């Protein structure tokens, strides 16, 4: 038994450099996804909320257009979205496969759409009194967003982001299937093509631990910021 364990550890040590490299690639994809979600998904979700009925920027055309785009992206089977986007990625980045930055393009698209929906939902959950108060005090739309909506929704925005982030990890493994690298690629190479399941499970356990820690930290932060 101890021999088997020793062999296992030896194998893990042998494979560690390529596992770490794969995790680094996943990390790159996650960073791009996170940036896209926060810098573009948050404003997009807020925009959809603000343009909906009885909101300050009520505009049926823009609201429906953005809703349709978000729905299309979210309902697109992710692997097919990646393939459909390839010509576009090649045109803008020069190559469509083979490195984590190329792989980040479809990841960013899905991240924006996914988090925008979470943001919209968080804002819809706020009581209407908040809007009424901002209007009564003569707040501008930016003041309404930053001094009222985001203040009151901050915990649910963080929890929504945590949930979205865990989905990003799942999406990132699909990138491995088309040569995007990352931990998904690692699992396919060793677990699927070479039947080295011990190494694959090690990678899976590391991902699970990472997700658990991230979820826990997100929840703690949300609780700390929630004074309601």
């Amino acid at each position: 038994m101890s021999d088997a364990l020793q062999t296992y550890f030896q194998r893990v040590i042998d494979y560690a450099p390529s596992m770490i490299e794969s995790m680094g690639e996943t990390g790159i994809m996650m960073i791009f996804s996170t940036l896209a979600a926060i810098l573009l998904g948050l404003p997009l979700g807020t925009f959809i909320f603000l343009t909906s009925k009885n909101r300050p920027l009520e505009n049926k055309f823009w609201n429906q257009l953005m809703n349709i785009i978000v729905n299309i992206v979210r309902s697109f089977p992710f692997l097919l979205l990646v393939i459909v986007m390839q010509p576009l990625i090649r045109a803008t980045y020069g190559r469509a496969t083979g490195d984590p930055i190329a792989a980040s393009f479809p990841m960013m698209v899905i991240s924006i759409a996914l988090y925008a929906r979470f943001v919209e939902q968080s804002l819809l959950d706020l009581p209407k009194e908040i809007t009424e108060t901002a209007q009564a005090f003569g707040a501008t739309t930016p003041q309404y967003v930053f001094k009222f909506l985001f203040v009151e929704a901050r915990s649910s925005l963080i929890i929504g982001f945590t949930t979205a982030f865990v989905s990003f990890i799942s999406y990132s493994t699909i990138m491995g299937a088309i040569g995007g690298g990352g931990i998904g690629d690692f699992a396919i190479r060793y677990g699927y093509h070479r039947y080295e399941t011990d190494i694959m499970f090690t990678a899976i356990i590391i991902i699970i631990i990472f997700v658990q820690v991230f979820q826990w930290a997100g929840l703690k932060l949300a609780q700390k910021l929630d004074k309601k």
Partner: protein
Amino acid sequence: MIEFKNVSKIFASKAGPLLAIDNISLFIEKNEIFGIIGESGAGKSTLLRFINALETPSEGIVEVNGTNVATLNNRELRLFKKQIGMIFQQFNLLGNKTVEENILLPLELHHYDDALDIDQILKFVGLEGKRNSYPSELSGGQKQRVGIARGLITRPKILLCDEPTSALDEITKREIVDLLTRVSETFEITILIVTHELDVVKDLCNRVAILDEGKLVDVLEVSREMNAFQSDVSYQELAREVLLNE
């Protein structure tokens, strides 16, 4: 000061158009405490909300200090709202902001030259010790005190009160009535109160408009003879008074 000229409001509802306000004309004097009473659905909140444009009349004119509210553009409307404070039935405080941050919120939205001092207003509403508390740590009465402080910090010319005591118990209600009385004595301010509670308008108002199904039924001068209440009466004493005397 505030004048409604033949105002009407029609809401679209599933059952067809609903006449919420039916051709009301009314004048409210400067520094008056004016009550608007009526049963639920009488249109009193709608009438109040015409004043700060939270609702717009379908017909008629609402004038505040000679300004026709309907003619203001967005920017003018925001500036116009600087002179109006508002307090709400559900207090409408931001749960993630402290008492102090909630009270100071209106000052973050506009520049005011002669806003009140935070210490001064906290003392006035009796919340000096709660400055750093969050609304979730306060009682209903304390939350409404924060609401009133937030409404007053800008030294508004008009204070709109939408069912300010309806979510409160009997004792707390009297405390808030007492506080609003002090507000009117201390500041040069016109106060409008929408409520369905007769004792509140009796204790507080100079004049009262009675609304029924969107129509103005009557405007009464409030008799002051028997309005004196003791704000220091205990809950038990109040209960005894109410239960044994009626």
